[in-house]
């Protein structure tokens, strides 16, 4: 079996490499079904608004969903007496694509650390994220933020739910013009735009951004978030993971779901983030779970384009057998397979089959065609 590992394409090997990384830290595999009762998503309405869940009616008339996410059902499976749980999953999730009304199937691999509430748990998960990105590409960036910074700001500026949703959406695009409009409409504080504009721009090396963000803290929650980021950075630096990491205060995600550390991973050549995760104690709390939790997912489907190597040949060798019998052909193919990685038998020299070596089976003999010479 050993030899098989070397024969895998990068695309096939990646999930195995990632599995090895996660299992090396004691994470266990979690599997789930494709169909989920719709009810479990009812408690999180932002999730419903943004994810475009595909629903259908089950056999008993109950509304069902094609699983749009794995984390929610992992959380649902947590009982009160669970102390810690470390799992990874490799699943397909289904969503409505937001650009055109069209179903999307996304292949995901992810990690969840349930019950970890300290700096080590965040560091461990970030280490796993970091190593995963490294396994995907040599050129990668992990961008980190702490949601506490934004939620502190939102509380200080007393934004309502609608304003909060709009603000997070604008920050995702960093648009200064939209921020200005937003402040005009939702805030009476003249300094509002100044703060938000700076935050949208603050990104780069960890220490520089931390330094720049110090003056922007308006309350303890924001200060605490910066302290947390600082501690995390110190830890990452000391374990040698600070190189491709940056701090981006404009990274935001759903506040009902995430609190604390959040992060997004990019690899060169893929136009969107391929990894996304963070601490989601808020989601746990909303679903009546008392444990803390942190995790991430990698969208393997987004990697297709950079993982696929151009296919040069359909098979390494092709054998044209013309009128030879089934047994004779099978034996000939077996023989050739000892010499070549792949052998494809075809009745005639069809032009659509592209191979390195071409053989002809004639009078019980395998002959190399002239083209090979």
């Amino acid at each position, binding site marked *: 079996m050993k030899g098989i590992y070397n024969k895998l394409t990068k695309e096939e090997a990646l999930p195995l490499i990632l599995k090895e990384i996660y299992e090396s830290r004691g994470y266990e595999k979690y599997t789930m079904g494709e169909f989920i009762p719709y009810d479990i998503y009812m408690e999180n309405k932002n999730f419903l608004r943004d994810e475009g869940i595909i629903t259908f009616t089950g056999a008993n008339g109950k509304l069902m969903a094609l699983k749009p996410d794995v984390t929610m059902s992992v959380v649902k499976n947590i009982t009160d007496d669970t102390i810690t749980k470390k799992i990874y999953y490799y699943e397909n999730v289904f969503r409505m694509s*937001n650009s055109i009304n069209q179903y999307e199937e996304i292949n995901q691999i992810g990690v969840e650390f349930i019950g970890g509430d300290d700096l080590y748990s965040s560091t461990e998960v970030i280490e796993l994220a970091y190593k995963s990105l490294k396994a995907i590409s040599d050129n990668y960036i992990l961008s980190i933020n702490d949601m506490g910074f934004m939620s502190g700001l939102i509380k200080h500026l007393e934004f309502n739910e609608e304003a909060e949703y709009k603000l997070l959406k604008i920050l995702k695009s960093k648009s200064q*013009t939209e921020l200005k409009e937003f402040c005009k409409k939702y805030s009476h504080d003249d300094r509002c735009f100044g703060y938000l504009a700076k935050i949208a721009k603050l990104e780069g090396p960890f220490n520089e951004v931390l330094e720049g963000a110090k003056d922007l803290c308006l309350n303890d929650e924001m200060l605490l978030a910066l302290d947390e980021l600082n501690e995390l950075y110190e830890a990452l630096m000391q374990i040698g993971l600070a190189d491709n990491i940056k701090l981006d205060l404009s990274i935001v995600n759903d506040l009902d779901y995430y609190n604390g550390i959040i992060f997004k991973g*990019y690899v060169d050549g893929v*136009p969107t*983030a391929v990894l996304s995760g963070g601490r989601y104690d808020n989601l746990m709390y909303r679903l009546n779970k008392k444990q803390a939790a942190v995790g991430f997912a990698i969208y393997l489907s987004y990697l297709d384009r950079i993982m696929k190597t151009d296919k040069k040949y359909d098979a390494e060798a092709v054998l044209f057998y013309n009128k030879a019998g089934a047994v004779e052909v099978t034996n000939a193919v077996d023989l050739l397979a000892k010499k070549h990685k792949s052998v494809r038998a075809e009745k005639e020299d069809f032009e659509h089959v592209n191979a390195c070596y071409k053989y002809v089976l004639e009078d019980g003999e395998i002959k190399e065609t002239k083209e090979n010479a």
Partner: protein
Amino acid sequence: MLNIALPKGRLGDSVYKLLDKLGYNCPEINNETRKLVFENKEKGVRYLLVKPSDVAVYVEKGAADIGVVGSDVLKEGDNDVFELLDLNMGKCKMCIAAKNGYEENMSLPLRVATKYPNTAYKYFNSISRRIEIIKLNGSIELAPILGLSDVILDIVETGSTLKGNDLSVIKDIDKISARLISNKSSYQFKKDNVDRIVNKINEIVLGE
């Protein structure tokens, strides 16, 4: 190499002039050719000339690293990109216009002809007005004249097209201007390159 998507037409021309001034020139672009891709290896830029309404898609999907696009297109497409700069060019307004003397009948859904169905839905939803969208791709002004729609929702620059067709603006709903956008991943890996252009443009735009 930085791939820059420019909208074909007047806006693209003036943005290119600006970039030319900043040293990102590509003389070939001024020739009367039908080419759509122009490259200056020395300066490390490649210009892609695309349909204005497609710029945001090129950038979102990473075919271009940065691009220039009207905020009307950006809002309509809701594309997942970074918006780095308001270029203060290509300024106009998103308006609702109707035939002169038009009076709204509140007992019927409003028939809105537009190139911007998402923008229209969003706006009329926000004021709880029931509408029927008629999606057109050009000559929107014709719709109310022929009774195809009650009003139009479109961008208005000088208003002369409206005037010439016996229409007038009944409501401004948004200010439009050209924006410099960037792909989210390119912004991570080519940040220095992108920032250099942004800063140079910013100096000029702010200076004026």
